[in-house]
């Protein structure tokens, strides 16, 4: 068989049984195609075929290529059956119409499957771009790596607020050691995030401020004094622990007073 000459195709049709099954499926397919019933069930069945192709890894080019072969075979057969050229043209046009409808449906499923994959990947990237780690009971860390654009910054605020509430965090450290450049926009977003975190009742520490970033911030005339800033993550962590300990000692004092009273 011609198809099995291609190594990729040979992989799909690895054994005799598969070949037989596919042949049967093809037979049913063509019988269905010429049954002349183009209802919802038919369309759904066609969409399933596209999905099956996508799942087993048949690329659209094979599907289209195979169809070209079929059409050629059909044309040859029509030529032997129908002698009148007008009749033959009409017959071929009808078949072509049916086939085009099928192809359109199949292409739709291919595209849909790809779009879904793309959406999944984007979600994964989004997730990866704002990894919030719990360092201690009430201390969170968000290491930022790579360029921060407006969309990412926007998403960053959402993620930070969500995690702060979820963990009932006291402090979140945003480490920007892995951010190559910081501009007015990014600084503005960081400030907004800091303010939103404050409104929730927690604090933000910005760590990983390299000499380069410190220079840019001052040269651009950005005022980020509303944020606690540290050059190293380790210093940021120390400050965070101090802030948590502060509120904890407040609680401890309260407990001690209560014990004394009891």
């Amino acid at each position, binding site marked *: 068989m011609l198809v099995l000459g291609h190594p990729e195709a040979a992989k799909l049709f690895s054994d005799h049984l598969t070949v037989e099954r596919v042949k049967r499926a093809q037979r049913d397919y063509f019988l269905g195609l010429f049954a002349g019933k183009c209802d919802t069930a038919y369309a759904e069945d066609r969409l399933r075929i596209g999905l099956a192709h996508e799942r087993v890894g048949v690329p659209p080019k094979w599907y289209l290529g195979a169809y070209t072969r079929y059409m050629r075979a059909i044309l040859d057969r029509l030529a032997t059956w129908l002698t009148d050229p007008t009749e033959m043209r009409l017959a071929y046009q009808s078949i072509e119409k049916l086939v085009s409808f099928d192809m359109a449906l199949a292409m739709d499923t291919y595209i849909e499957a790809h779009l879904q994959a793309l959406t999944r990947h984007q979600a994964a990237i989004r997730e990866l771009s704002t990894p919030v780690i719990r360092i201690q009971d009430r201390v969170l860390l968000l290491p930022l790596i790579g360029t921060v654009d407006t969309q990412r910054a926007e998403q960053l*605020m*959402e993620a930070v*607020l*969500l995690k*702060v*509430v979820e963990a*009932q965090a*006291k402090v979140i450290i945003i480490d920007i050691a892995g951010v190559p450049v910081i501009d007015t926009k990014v600084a503005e977003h960081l400030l*907004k*995030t800091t*303010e*939103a*975190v*404050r*409104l*929730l*009742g*927690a604090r933000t520490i910005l760590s990983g401020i390299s000499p380069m970033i410190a220079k840019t911030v001052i040269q651009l005339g950005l005022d980020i004094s509303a944020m606690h800033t540290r050059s190293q993550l380790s210093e940021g962590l120390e400050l965070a622990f101090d802030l948590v300990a502060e*509120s904890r000692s*407040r*609680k401890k004092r*309260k407990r001690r007073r209560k014990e004394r009273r009891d």
Partner: protein
Amino acid sequence: MPKGSIPILQVGSTLVVTIQTELRDTIADALQEDLLERIGKTRAGALIIDITGLEVVDTYVARIIATTGQMAKLMGTETVLVGMRREVAATIVRIGFRLTGVETALNLDEGLELAKELVRRRRRRKRD
């Protein structure tokens, strides 16, 4: 809603108000007046405004909260805002409103702690 319809509780020297209904402008105004009156009467050290129940805070309400905090401070009372939802925080920041004049805490429990701490700090400063 008439004036005085949102109850203001007193816990030690701290006043606590929990806002649960959506604040229409008139209620917000009335609440501010009530709060200032109570602060004047009780000489409370701190005021806690709990907005856990608020799903939406518009600029008007945000301004009422901020100005109440600033006014209370003039009268010698620290204000702690607690329980803001993250959606509310995001919106306030996005529209660029600066909610100054109030301290913040995650929940009522921590708000009470912070209120006490603030009162203590203020007293210490007075002594020095």
